[in-house]
């Protein structure tokens, strides 16, 4: 059975960013070697964040690209009961959108791809997580350059 990945909004953001860490996974999904899942909430989140920066038209175009891609858009409504139970259990660890993603991932036995370190060490049946950390700091090369300049 092909591997199934569930992308959170952060992982989708890294895709449009062009982050090399998500490229192999996206390519796997694009060529049909793996299944990729995105929840409607994650896509909405990406679209509204993009909308504020590049405008509604471009954000919708990006949303449409994802909707018409091999990534499977999953509607959250059938998972809301399960998500509410998960939110109750992990109330100080995950947001509601994360819990919907977690519920979807449990049902579809997915590997969650995320930028949120809260998923590290997650112990839920049928689910694993791969965290792509992001930070606001300068890139390591930048830091190196700065250090060599300073006395």
């Amino acid at each position: 059975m092909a591997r199934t990945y569930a992308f959170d909004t952060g992982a989708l953001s890294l895709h449009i960013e062009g982050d090399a860490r998500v490229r192999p996974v996206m390519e796997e999904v694009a060529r049909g070697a793996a299944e990729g899942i995105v929840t409607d909430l994650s896509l909405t989140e990406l679209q509204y964040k993009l909308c504020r920066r590049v405008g509604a038209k471009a954000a919708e175009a990006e949303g449409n690209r994802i909707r018409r891609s091999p990534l499977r858009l999953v509607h959250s409504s059938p998972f809301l009961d399960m998500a509410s139970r998960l939110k109750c259990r992990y109330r100080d660890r995950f947001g509601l959108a994360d819990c919907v993603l977690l519920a979807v991932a449990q049902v579809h036995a997915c590997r969650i791809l995320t930028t949120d370190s809260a998923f590290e060490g997650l112990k839920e049946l049928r689910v694993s997580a791969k965290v792509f950390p992001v930070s606001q700091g300068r890139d390591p090369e930048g830091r190196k350059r700065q250090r060599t300049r300073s006395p």
Partner: protein
Amino acid sequence: MQTLIAMHVPVSLMVLATITGRGMMHIPADLRKRFGIRPGDKVELRPTREGILLERIPSLMEGFGKYPGIGKRIAIELLEEKKAELAREERALRAETERIRRSPRGENVRV
């Protein structure tokens, strides 16, 4: 990028194509080149008042790296917002629990 296959277009732009018995149609090379249609591409056929609109669907990987600098900022912003929201929720829950704990027994507690 959109291609309109319609009856009412200027003669200079008109391209005639024949539909085969199985509903197949050949898109001429110059049109394929102009609209970036390559073998293996997916296209969407949309019925409109004027005819059938044929639109190439951009591939998933065409969106990779489309917004450098923006994607990472979005990811960071989302994490910060989530952290703040969870902290807000937790504070509200603690305050509510404290109010209930301090209220005299039997008194209505406004939450």
